[in-house]
């Protein structure tokens, strides 16, 4: 059985960031990757997808960053894959590709501190394991999705490619996160009538006061806010993604979509006898999003003033227009809807993790990426340690923190070994 000190599961930006930090401390490790480096960026998502963060924010440990000529642009998915691939090469990361982890178990023998990592290419033994296999491995759809009448195509954002793959009929997009609003926008432009079912959402202008909104969030320190500073960690870890698209100057909020012809409905809450039922809470979820955006922009204004940046606050977006009365149902048997896009979120795939550190809903229990199982860490989950933990730009700080903790764990293990020897 090959031995290593640390096994990192997943060679996306998080796994490679961790690898780089481990290498900087000369900690022996391997990165196991089921496909190629940056596999999700190569094999999943829709053709037009671009990063939500501007290129200058693509920064990884070791001083690696976007070096192209368009720092204010947004990388296409294949360009992200290229950049992460180049990072793996430049870091000389010890990646084993086409190696699927099938189980991670606590080592039961005398070396009780370690883990056995089983893969389809053999078994590893390690003192520590870092889960970096992605927060969006598996799409989550509501349980009532199986009530969709026959003949309607169901697709999730990871499998959606372009309008051409869908029937030439109306589309119901469920969910108003970044995926939902981008796909709704693209499909409406393709000539299909799109209906968007919106629950709680995070409204965001692409630019504010003539700069990218993420520039403000980065510069003001908002993205650095840590998980022990927020008052409701459950809430912030479950926030939908920001309603953004990687296109300069373009805002894709519910007003923009409605102006393009998209019909707005409340959250999809059930399908009964072929009829889709929508919540009557649409006015409130829009009010919540408008108020929350107002508070964000207020805090940016306050920070801008304290930082001595000139100019008063920018014009604010108009309140979200809510159709009155908001429709409460659509008969899915009428032929009006040909496709349902389930942009209802994602979860990590931890089916291979055979260590008792999951909660009753199968989610990893962790304190800033440190699990209760000594030597088991996670990276890249929403608000893992910071507001930016789910962004590429968040990997560096999180990986540095976890590497420091992991090094301390290895020292403690070594000290115990010496004492017992």
């Amino acid at each position, binding site marked *: 059985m090959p031995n290593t000190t640390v096994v990192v599961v997943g060679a996306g930006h998080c796994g490679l960031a961790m690898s780089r930090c481990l290498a900087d401390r000369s900690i022996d490790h391997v990165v196991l990757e089921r496909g190629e480096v940056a596999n999700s960026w190569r094999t999943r998502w829709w053709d037009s997808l671009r990063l939500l963060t501007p290129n200058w924010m693509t920064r990884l440990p070791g001083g690696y960053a976007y070096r192209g000529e368009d720092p204010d642009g947004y990388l296409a998915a294949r360009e992200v894959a290229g950049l992460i691939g180049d990072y793996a090469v430049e870091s000389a990361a010890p990646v084993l590709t086409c190696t699927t982890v099938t189980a991670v178990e606590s080592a039961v023998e005398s070396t009780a501190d370690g883990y056995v990592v089983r893969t389809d290419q053999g078994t590893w033994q390690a003192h520590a394991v870092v889960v970096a296999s992605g927060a969006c491995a598996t799409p989550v759809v509501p349980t009532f999705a199986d009530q969709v009448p026959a003949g309607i195509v169901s697709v999730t954002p990871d499998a959606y490619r372009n309008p051409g793959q869908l029937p030439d009929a109306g589309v119901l997009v469920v969910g108003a996160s970044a995926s939902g609003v981008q796909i709704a926008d693209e499909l409406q432009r393709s000539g299909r009538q799109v209906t968007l079912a919106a629950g*709680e959402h995070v409204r965001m202008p692409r630019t504010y006061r003539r700069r990218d909104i993420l520039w403000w969030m980065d510069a003001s320190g908002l993205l650095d806010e840590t998980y022990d500073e927020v008052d409701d960690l459950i809430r912030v870890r479950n926030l939908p993604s920001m309603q953004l698209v990687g296109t300069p100057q373009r805002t894709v909020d519910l007003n923009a979509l409605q102006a393009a012809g998209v019909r707005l409905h*409340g*959250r999809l*809450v*059930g399908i*009964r006898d072929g009829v889709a*039922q929508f*919540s*009557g*809470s649409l006015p*409130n979820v829009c*009010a*919540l999003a408008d*108020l929350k955006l*107002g*508070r964000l922009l207020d805090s940016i204004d306050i920070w801008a003033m304290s930082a001595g940046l000139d100019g008063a606050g920018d014009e604010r977006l108009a309140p979200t227009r809510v159709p009155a*009365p908001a429709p409460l149902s659509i008969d899915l048997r009428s032929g009006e809807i040909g496709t349902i896009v389930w942009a209802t979120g994602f979860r990590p795939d931890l089916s291979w993790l055979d260590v008792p550190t999951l*909660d*009753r809903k199968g989610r990893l229990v962790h304190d800033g990426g440190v699990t209760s199982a000594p030597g088991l860490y996670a990276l890249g989950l929403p608000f893992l340690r910071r507001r930016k933990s789910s962004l590429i730009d968040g990997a560096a700080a999180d990986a540095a923190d976890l590497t420091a903790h992991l090094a301390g764990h290895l020292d403690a293990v070594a000290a115990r070994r010496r004492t017992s020897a």
Partner: protein
Amino acid sequence: MTTTTQAPADNGVNVEALLGVRDMLPDSPEVAQFQWRSTTSWEHGTHSRSDVETFFGFGEEQQHHRKFSYDVDHPEQFAAQDKGSTPVEYVLVALGGCLTAGVAAVAQQRQIQLRSVQATLTAEMDLHGILGADPDTRNGFSGVRVTYEIDADATPEEIRALVAQSQKRSAVFDIMTNPTSVTVDVA
């Protein structure tokens, strides 16, 4: 001249106790499982009386400090005797009570002192539905409107956020805006 009070906000809501319950949940999620109960007895005509006394929660049988009774009837305009509110008015009572409790609790949590909170609820309904006169008209409300007048130590935006957050966490708002499975049996 304006004066500011430094005293902590006190709306009479024990937020610490509620947050304490939430902190218990990760280790004992079963304490969150509640059952609410009511019994209804027909009196005469469209008049009935509903009682509320016990419920189940926090892992055991629970009891209100006394039995609460409610007369339910219809007004004289429906050729009834008007011995109590109509059932649909109780729905408005429930919504107003739930949202207002939420406003007080959220205000307490956010350290906002309330001085007065007044909600006015209206619900539109088309009798074609319950009379069976038009199959395209539903029995229930076609829309509900709640208007709050709130006097509090807070900005208008903060007050709007209180009311929005109260809706977000309200059981009755959820019950009214989303479908609920209802099974009616004969024992």
